[in-house]
């Protein structure tokens, strides 16, 4: 079997998720031995046109050009995995979904007519079929390696869909909500970070987006009890996964 090719692409995003791949310092050399990196601008300017065996796509679709490009990437990729909150939920830039984007362009740009953007920021899966979505802002290094390793081994990645609370309890953290009355989004947030924030005494702020079965409506009264007013709750939910949590509030 020939060496599989790996490609990394970026749409509207900050580059943090693809940087996570470069951050896998101990594994990078091994990875380079197992795959041929065919397209990864952040690592190399040597590009090959595809087709690719595994494409990692970071970023959300915010322009008509992005939408076209992601269709083209899909056509050239056997497996397409989206990485990060932008690619899987629309990212922080999805805040525009709650506002009038034309008003923004008029306020910011001298020549708004030069700006060709979509009214919303949307996840890649809204535009093309996606084989796997890896969440997080940014994605977790261990989980990213797990997705690639699982692909190489021909198995399903072990990325649980349950809440952050599972990980929080497994690591033996004292619940910040129950013991301190600190607002925490852990019960509705997708695991993946290893429950880092509660381990440092602060509440989860939802950077991995909604879990597989969130009950946001049952959590909101708790956030109120712990001192957040409606505005504060809205701000807490409207960060990197704003659009995904918004869908949950409305469901």
């Amino acid at each position, binding site marked *: 079997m020939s060496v599989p090719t790996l490609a990394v692409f970026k749409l509207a995003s900050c580059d943090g998720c693809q940087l996570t791949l470069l951050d896998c310092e101990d594994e990078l050399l091994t990875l380079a031995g197992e795959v041929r990196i065919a397209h990864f601008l952040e690592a190399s300017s040597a590009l090959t046109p595809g087709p690719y065996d595994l494409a990692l796509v970071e970023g959300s679709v915010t322009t008509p050009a992005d939408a076209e490009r992601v269709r083209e990437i899909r056509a050239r990729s056997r497996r397409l995995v989206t990485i990060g909150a932008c690619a899987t939920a629309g990212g922080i830039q999805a805040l525009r979904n709650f506002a009038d984007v034309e008003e923004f362009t008029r306020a910011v740009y001298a020549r708004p007519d030069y700006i060709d953007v979509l009214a919303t920021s949307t996840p890649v899966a809204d535009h093309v079929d996606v084989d796997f979505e890896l969440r997080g802002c940014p994605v977790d290094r261990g989980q990213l390696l797990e997705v690639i390793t699982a692909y190489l081994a021909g198995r399903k990645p072990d990325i649980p869909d349950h809440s952050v609370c599972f990980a929080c309890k497994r690591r033996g953290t004292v619940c910040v909500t*129950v013991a301190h009355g600190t607002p925490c989004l852990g019960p509705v947030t997708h695991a993946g970070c290893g429950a880092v924030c509660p381990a440092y005494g602060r509440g989860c702020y939802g950077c991995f987006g909604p879990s597989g*079965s*969130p009950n946001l409506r049952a959590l909101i009264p708790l956030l109120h009890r712990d001192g957040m007013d409606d505005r504060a709750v809205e701000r807490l939910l409207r960060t990197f996964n704003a659009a995904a949590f918004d869908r949950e509030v409305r469901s």
Partner: protein
Amino acid sequence: MTKNPAAGVLDRDGLSALVEVLIARGRTVIGPTVRDGAIVLAEITSADDLPFGWGTQVEAGRYRLVPRTDGAVFAHTAGPQSWKTFLHPPRERLWSAERAQDGTLSVTGDDSGQPSYAFLGVRPCDLRAITIQDRVLAGGRYPDQGYRERRTGAFLVAAECTEPGATCFCVSMGGGPAADSGFDLALTEVLDGAGHRFLVRSGSEAGQEILADLPHRPADAATRDAARVAVDEARDRMGRAMPPVDLRTLMGESLEADRWDDVAARCLTCGNCTMVCPTCFCTTTEEVTDLTGDHAERWQRWDSCFDVDFSHLHGGPVRASSRSRYRQWLTHKLSTWYEQFGSSGCVGCGRCVTWCPVGIDITEEARALHDERAGRLRHEQRKETEQ
């Protein structure tokens, strides 16, 4: 209990000596200690690590650490962990495999040697929970080797309850604040005019042997009486109670109850209740491979029936709704556990009530199911008499 010949009285130095002696015998001593605003269970290296002068105030979904003026060390209720964290750890490697250059595989079991534990301050409810997990994990045809080794090697020092919490209901589950068996040593904390001391009883030869090594005096009648009164009074001060009905039948007759929809609207399906429950044992298997595929490992980690993937078969999860997942938890704890393991799966420790972020209370849910069934029966009877 009062007839037990191997009873004595320890003072605070005696308690310190207990920790020292256990450590000197090569044991890893786990006990209650204050961390991050709670009393957790962790390795302790001296009795000074114990929560002297700390108590707890709990309610459904709420836990607060509060200072006590009496200096008591065992006057607190269950924290977020139980002894299962040590006997049945959250994550455990089962085996690893290597693929050699010629393609041959070698598999190595993970028998790297288990720690020799001493648990200090095991509550009577937790003694029962350990017995229940023994049946689940070490009994039957396929015992969990790691669990069995850790368990058979563990030395248990019980602490009887003198200060039950608002979420405790062990009495209504057939238990109580007194420790009768299943321990090596049992302590009862006594605080009165005659000083801060512990009635100590041995429950095994190993316990007797350790006790002989500790500076202690023979148990006097006043200490025995004070200990008995404190435990008896605790029995009457349970914060909660299960409805006094046959819970097994209640669950069996409530499978289609409306109450499940009500609780499903409140439940976050976050899994906290099963993680803190000292009897919940469910795990999933995790296969770890490296990038080359030459090295693989199998791990076991805690899982829960609140996880959608937990019931995932081909085509999708069997219990997709939170209604069906909450129902699985409650009916397993209170009913189907009997069929599987010959007892209830709940000892009334109150952890799931305290540590549920939204304060869902297993006793309240059982009572609501009971009321709903009673209403249903009344309605049926009325219909029958009308006919």
